[in-house]
């Protein structure tokens, strides 16, 4: 299918197209006769690739308020989340075996937690309120002397709600033994991320959510000293000692370069894009709510504008998605779970019924989104929701 015939893309929370400037720079690296070296090699080719890696590392660090030596490259946020959770759990297993997380985390946080549960760790899954917010008081109440990790998403990938990470960071600092891991896969380019100021110990990042390549990510590991010891991790893979021994394997120079450039661009455009996307989201919500029987999911006052999640009363979810599919690329929830014929566990955690959770759509707005796209989406939804309600006799 050629691009002109493709449906309107409103699924930027699942992934974003690679920025053409990023793609061009990555292609330069791939095609270069001097930049293909193994960054760990002790010759000019290696040094050239290594310098590119370090420049990219500095770009990623700058975008999230971290120091370059805190950035550990990974294959994406899923690997970063796994490294953070299993790494902390294994390293501090003799200090405590209790972890706090929430019911609305990404599967790449929940599944490692469930695996640890099977291995004997205690996991507290905090419920959000009806708007998707977890109150820091809930975290305070859940902290125990043997708590070694609090893992929480900053920007929820289904509803866009932003948690109060700074408050939770302060609680963890006060506790002393509890490290704070934040899944920030959706954050870069959508909201300000200040690793140091938030008091975060571990931060997971993804390149492809911010117009970078798939297969690239990072775990930011705090090197701050101070009142409590630096966070330590047990590595998950061995064989080369790269990334300070935390993540063995030859680094992919073009991927790192792409992620670094994507993050630099995203950070530079943050304010301008935030305002523009905010206007588009407002336009979309006004248009959709005019259809009637449309409910917004997530606390609008504490959300990034890039995501809008709505439930449509009186229509069945699979039919709704099939009806809009020829015209709109949207999803029913996380792309990592949307192939499953199950209602969103995030929306269920917010208290939505099974039916309404199934008949929900997530609109992910991004750089390519235009007023025309939004108006197309509104027109398609108005027509198809009315048609399905008529067929259902609703």
């Amino acid at each position: 299918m050629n691009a002109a015939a493709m449906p309107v893309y409103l699924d930027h929370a699942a992934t974003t197209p690679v920025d053409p400037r990023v793609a061009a720079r990555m292609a330069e690296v791939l095609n270069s006769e001097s930049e293909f070296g193994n960054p760990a090699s002790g010759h000019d080719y290696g040094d050239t690739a290594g310098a590119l890696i370090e420049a990219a590392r500095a770009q990623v660090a700058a975008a999230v308020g971290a120091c370059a030596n805190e950035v550990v490259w990974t294959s994406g946020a899923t690997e970063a989340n796994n490294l953070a959770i299993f790494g902390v759990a294994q390293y501090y297993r003799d200090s405590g075996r209790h972890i706090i997380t929430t019911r609305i985390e990404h599967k790449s946080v929940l599944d490692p937690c469930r695996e640890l549960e099977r291995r004997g760790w205690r996991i507290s899954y905090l419920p959000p309120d009806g708007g998707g917010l977890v109150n820091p008081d809930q975290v305070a109440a859940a902290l125990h002397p043997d708590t070694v990790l609090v893992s929480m998403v900053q920007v929820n990938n289904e509803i866009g709600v932003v948690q109060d990470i700074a408050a939770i960071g302060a609680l963890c600092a006060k506790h002393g033994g509890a490290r704070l891991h934040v899944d920030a896969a959706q954050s870069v380019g959508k909201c300000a991320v200040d690793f140091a100021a938030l008091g975060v110990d571990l931060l997971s990042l993804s390149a492809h959510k911010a117009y970078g390549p798939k297969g690239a990510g990072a775990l930011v590991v705090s090197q701050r000293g101070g009142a409590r010891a630096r966070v330590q991790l047990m590595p998950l893979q061995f064989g080369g000692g790269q990334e300070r021994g935390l993540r063995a394997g030859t680094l992919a120079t073009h991927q790192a370069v792409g992620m670094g450039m994507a993050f630099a661009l995203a950070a530079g455009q943050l304010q301008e894009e935030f305002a523009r996307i905010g206007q588009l989201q407002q336009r979309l919500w006004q248009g959709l709510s005019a259809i009637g029987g449309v409910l917004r999911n997530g606390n609008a006052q504490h959300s990034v504008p890039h995501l809008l999640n709505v439930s449509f009363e009186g229509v069945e979810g699979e039919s709704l998605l099939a009806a809009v599919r020829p015209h709109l690329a949207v999803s029913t929830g996380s792309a990592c779970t949307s192939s499953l014929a199950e209602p969103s566990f995030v929306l269920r955690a917010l208290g939505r019924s099974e039916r309404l959770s199934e008949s929900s759509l997530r609109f992910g707005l991004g750089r390519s989104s235009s007023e025309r796209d939004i108006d197309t989406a509104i027109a398609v939804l108005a027509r198809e929701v009315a048609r399905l309600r008529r067929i259902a006799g609703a």
Partner: protein
Amino acid sequence: MKYNEQTRRYFETAARAGVLSGPSVYRGAAGNREHGTWVQFDVQTASGILKEARFLAFGCPHTIAVAAWVAEQVLGQPVIRRLPDSVQAISLQFAVPVEKLGRLLIIEDAWLAALDSAITEA
């Protein structure tokens, strides 16, 4: 989920969606919206022949497509207590995945309920 051409066509057109009123109109329904699938058929008979049929459906594209197909296929057929084809044959025709076969049984139940009503009251 991918749908075959026939499912897409009947889902998109959904001809005969609606209700009937008037003399010799009989209704049957099955399923439950809260459980995800609900289907209703209205049939109009004359001299033992199905003259008109309409359906309403809350459900997945397969449910809507098959209900629309049933309402189309039965026109001009005698009032006999059965679907136009077996559930097995319909599932193949519409490429209904095995985990959804229960929804075809709901369509069958709704259809048979409409015919039962017609046979009983006629």
